[in-house]
C-alpha cells in the first residue's frame, strides 16, 4: 500500500507539468472539435457548391444540361408557387403515411406481443410486403384504387411500416425478465404489464424504427408518385420532377430535388429530436458521457 502511494506520489510530482500539458492538449482538441463539428460541413458544402458553379462557368455547360447553383436558386424562388404546392402535397402524403405506419406498426407489434399465434399468422404478410419492391406493387395498387391520394398513401405506408413493426416487436419482447416476473408476482393484468413495462421498454426500439420509417415514408411517397404519373392539381414534387424532365426544364428538376432532399433532412432531424427528447433522461443512447 505504501509502495503504491509513494510511486503515485513520485509520478505525479515528476510528471506534474506534463500532465497539465496533456490536459491542456485534450481541452484544446475538444474546443477544436466543437467548432469543427459545425464549421467543417459548412465549409466543405460551400466549397462543393462553389466548385459546381465554377465547373459550369469554366466549361460553358448549357443550363439544360447542368444549371449552376445560382440558376437553381432563382428557379426555386421563381417557381415557388408551383413547387410549394407540390411540396405541400408530398409532405402531406409523407406525414399521413408515417402516422398510419406508426399506428399500424405499433398496433400490430402489440398484437404480436400479446399472441404468438397472431404473430405466426401475420408476420409472413409483413415480410412479403417489406421485401417486394414498392415500384413493382405500385402499378397494381393504382389499378385497384381509384383515389390517387389513397393509393399514394398506401404505397408510402407499405414502405414505412415495417421498420416500426419489426423494431417495436423486438422492443416489446426485450423487457427485463426479472421485471416481468415481478409483474407476475404483483398479479398485474395484461394491460398493466403492457403499459407499465412493455411499452416503456419498447420506446427506444420504436424510436429507432421511427427514424428509419420517416425517411422511408418520403421515399415511398416519391416513388409511388413516379408510378402514378398523372399530373395536374394535387401533384407532388416527384411529378413536378418528371414533368420538368419532359420539358427539359433542368433547373426546375434541380430545385424540386433540393426540396425533396431538404424534406428528408427535416424529417430525419425531427425524428432524431423526438427520440432525444423522449430518451434523454434515462436511455444509454441519449446520455452524455465524460
Amino acid at each position, binding site marked *: 500500500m505504501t509502495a503504491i502511494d509513494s510511486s503515485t506520489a513520485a509520478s505525479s510530482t515528476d510528471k506534474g507539468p506534463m500532465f497539465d500539458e496533456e490536459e491542456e492538449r485534450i481541452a484544446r482538441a475538444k474546443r477544436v472539435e466543437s467548432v469543427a463539428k459545425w464549421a467543417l460541413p459548412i465549409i466543405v458544402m460551400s466549397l462543393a457548391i462553389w466548385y459546381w458553379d465554377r465547373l459550369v462557368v469554366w466549361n460553358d455547360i448549357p443550363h439544360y444540361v447542368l444549371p449552376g447553383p445560382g440558376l437553381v436558386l432563382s428557379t426555386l424562388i421563381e417557381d415557388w408557387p408551383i413547387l410549394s404546392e407540390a411540396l405541400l402535397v408530398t409532405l402531406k402524403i409523407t406525414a399521413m403515411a408515417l402516422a398510419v405506419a406508426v399506428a399500424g406498426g405499433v398496433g400490430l407489434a402489440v398484437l404480436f406481443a400479446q399472441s404468438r399465434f397472431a404473430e405466426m399468422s401475420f408476420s409472413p404478410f409483413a415480410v412479403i410486403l417489406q421485401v417486394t419492391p414498392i415500384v413493382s406493387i405500385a402499378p397494381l395498387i393504382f389499378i385497384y384504387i381509384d383515389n390517387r391520394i389513397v393509393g399514394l398513401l398506401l404505397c408510402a405506408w407499405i414502405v414505412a411500416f415495417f421498420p416500426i413493426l419489426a423494431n417495436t416487436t423486438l422492443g416489446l419482447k426485450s423487457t*427485463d425478465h*426479472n421485471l416481468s*416476473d415481478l409483474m407476475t408476482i404483483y*398479479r398485474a393484468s395484461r394491460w*398493466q404489464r403492457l403499459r*407499465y413495462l412493455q411499452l*416503456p421498454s419498447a*420506446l427506444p426500439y420504436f424510436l429507432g424504427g421511427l427514424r428509419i420509417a420517416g425517411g422511408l415514408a418520403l421515399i415511398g411517397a416519391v416513388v409511388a408518385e413516379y408510378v402514378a404519373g398523372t399530373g395536374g392539381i394535387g401533384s407532388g414534387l416527384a411529378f413536378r420532377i418528371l414533368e420538368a424532365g419532359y420539358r427539359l426544364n433542368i433547373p426546375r428538376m434541380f430545385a424540386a430535388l433540393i426540396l425533396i432532399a431538404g424534406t428528408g433532412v427535416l424529417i430525419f432531424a425531427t425524428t432524431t429530436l423526438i427520440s432525444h427528447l423522449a430518451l434523454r433522461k434515462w*436511455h444509454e443512447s441519449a446520455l452524455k458521457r465524460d
Partner: protein
Amino acid sequence: MAITAARPDPIPSPELREPVLRMQEVDKTFNGGVVALRRMSLEVRKGDFISLLGPSGCGKSTALRLIAGLMRPTLGKIVWEGGASRDDLGVVFQEPTLMPWATVEQNVWLPFRVRGESLRSTRDRIMETLELVGLEKFAKSYPRELSGGMKMRVSIARALVTNPRLILMDEPFAALDEITRQKLNDDLLSLKAKTGATVIFVTHSVFESVFLSDRILVMAARPGRVIREIAVPEPYPRGIEWRTSPEYAAIARQTSDTLHSTLAPGSEAH
C-alpha cells in the same frame, strides 16, 4: 441507519409466532427430467429470517420461484397460512431490477400502482420507506444516477413498501463489492428490526447467512435438497460485534463444514 434504533418488542420464540407459509414435501422436476428440488419442507413463521445456503444448482432459487408462484411444484404443496397469499410478497432479485425510465419514487410505487393506487395517495408511505433505506433525498432521481448499492436499496424499498408478510431475496448482494455488501447486510438487519419483516434469503455466502439469519437451511445439489437446518440463536438486533464474536465463528465453521460435506469430491469444479 444505526443498529441502535428503536428496539421492537422482543421477538417471541418460534413456536409462539404465527405461521406464514408451509412447504410440504415439495418436489420440482423440470421437463428434461432434471430434479431441481427434492422433498423440501419448510415452515416459515412471522419474523423469521431464513437463509437458503448452498452451491449453484442446489435448487435454492427454484425454491424461491416456487414460493413466489412463478412455478408450480411437481409434487407437494405450498400453503399460505392465515389468509396470506402471494399478493403479500416482496421480492428482491440479484440485480436491482429497476425500471430505468422511472424515477426512484415511481419505481417504489410500482407494487401500489399495480393495485390501482395513485402515486399521490401512496407518496407518504413511499417516502417513509425511502427514508428507511436512506434514500429520501433521491426520490426524484433516475436509477442511472445511483450507485450499485443505492440501486439495491431502491429495490429493497420496493419490496418493503407494501409491508408484505414475506420478503424473498435472491442473492441480492452477490453482485456488490465487499464493503457495500457488509454495509447493506448491517442495514438489512436494522430494517428487519424496525419492520419485523419475515425474510427468506438465498445466498451462497456462509458468512452472510450466519450474520443475517436465525435459521440456515444448508442445501446440496444434484438433486437439489435440504440436508441440514442450522439454528443461529443470537437474538436481534445484531450489531457489528456479532460479526467478531466466538459464537459467530463457531456457527460459521459448523455451517461451512456442513456445506463442504455436501460437495462430492470433484464437484467443486462445476
